[in-house]
């Protein structure tokens, strides 16, 4: 589902990703971790086609990221959903409208849109806020709107950048359960987080630790790995 080989990415002279390689199959779950500035977000953006592949190769959901023409990028984004660290939701539109957006741009009929949006909002405990404008709800709620907008399309690959950053422990674990459900049903999930508890909660997952743009041995060990 995802293949990354010798991927490097630089902003000017600064290399934010250095020679990264990994591969994931359908339904795999990958935790992406590492200190702030390690390159997690950069890797997510490459995988979502927002940043070009400068060196190495990368493919996701059957799309070769290196040779994907801009005109066809939207097709990738219909299979690969992303939750941004800074949400990127529309503050002046309602929770409902934000979550419905990816379905509407696909031209889905509105009865279908209704059904899907309602189900997703309920699973993320946002149903009571669906008519609120996004700037009127809390940071944690906005974060869950961002998650809802990503999962509503039933993506093949789900990229989530610190999706629990603004949530308390209980909500974090609840959200983790949502991701786990998708993973169980065959969605490939890449989740960037600093939260060790989250990582420990899913023993079967793969882990990629980044530091200064390079893949490193994880310095702490779920199941006693690394040192």
């Amino acid at each position, binding site marked *: 589902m995802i293949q990354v080989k010798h991927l490097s990415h630089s902003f000017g002279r600064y290399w934010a990703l250095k020679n990264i390689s990994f591969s994931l199959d359908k339904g795999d779950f990958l935790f992406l971790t590492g200190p702030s500035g390690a390159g997690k977000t950069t890797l997510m953006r490459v995988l979502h086609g*927002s940043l070009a592949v400068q060196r190495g190769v990368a493919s996701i959901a059957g799309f070769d990221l290196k040779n994907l023409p*801009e*005109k066809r*990028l939207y097709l990738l*984004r219909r299979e690969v959903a*992303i939750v941004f660290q800074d949400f990127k939701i529309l503050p002046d539109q309602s929770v409902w409208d934000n979550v419905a957006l990816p379905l509407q*741009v696909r031209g889905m009929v509105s009865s279908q849109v209704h059904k899907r949006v309602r189900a997703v909002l309920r699973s993320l405990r946002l149903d009571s806020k669906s008519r609120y404008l996004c700037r009127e709800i809390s940071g944690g709620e906005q974060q869950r709107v961002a998650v809802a907008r990503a999962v509503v399309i039933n993506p093949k690959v789900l990229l989530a950048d610190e999706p629990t950053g603004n949530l308390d422990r209980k909500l974090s674990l609840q959200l983790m359960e949502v991701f786990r459900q998708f993973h169980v049903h065959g969605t490939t999930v890449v989740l960037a987080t600093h939260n060790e508890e989250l990582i420990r909660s899913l023993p079967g997952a793969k882990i990629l630790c980044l530091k200064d743009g390079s893949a490193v041995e994880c310095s702490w060990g779920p199941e006693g790995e690394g040192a």
Partner: protein
Amino acid sequence: MRILARLLYLGVINLGRNRWAQFFTLSTVAFTAFMAGIFLLLLYNVQQAARSTQEDIQFQVYWDPAYPMEEIREQWKEISSWDIGSMETFTPEEALEDLAGSIAGDLDADSLAGDNPLPATALIEFSLQGQDTQDRALLMRSRLMELPGVQRVSYNPLQVDLARTWVRVSSGIFWPLIGLMLVITGLVVANTLKLNQMQRREEVEILALVGASSSYIQFPLLVSGALQGLVGGVLSLGLLRLLHLALEDVLYFPPLWLKIEFLPLSYILAIPGVLTLVGLLSSFLAVNNRLR
């Protein structure tokens, strides 16, 4: 088809958002187009005035009232054989009748008939195409003056000058000015509309991130851009028409006798048409490189 309808709808709905920004954008577009319209109106009228005088020039010839009428008729016959466009002649009686007709009632024509104060006159028109208009006009004037019995020849030298100036000016300045004006208007309008679209950059970016195709993103923006251009253009035409109604007659007095004419239909259609195109183009440029 359903998507197309939705996109059209989105394009119109977009205009309803952020009303103040829309208001300022529309005002800028309308007023810029209005200024350009005033300029066009001015040029158009100067051109019209010059054209009409360029085509024909009038000489008014007055004969000495004491000069015998038979001789005058002989001269009329001779003049009409010259290279002129047309000639209208008035015997003193005809002139009096004309005068009486134009100030009906207030004048007792019969009481004057015995002692008619009016001279015999002729109104000669000839075409003034080509370069040496002034020379030909002067030549004609002296030719008429040399006829025995002719007291006075008047013609409209102002118009001749205007015509001559116009011939020189129109080729050298008219089209470059129109071009410059179009460029300036286009730039101002395009930039205004583009800025207006830029406000939706965030929305455009997010649409792209959730998998909207570029046509899905662009179409509503193009629709609202085109609509802004169209509405701005129509508003500017309205303003221009109001201005025209107010100023129509300001030059309608002697010796100018110029009625300011409104723009012809082709111009009227062209103004909103061009603005619509500019609107389309600027929206296209505003978002074209922001889809990644």
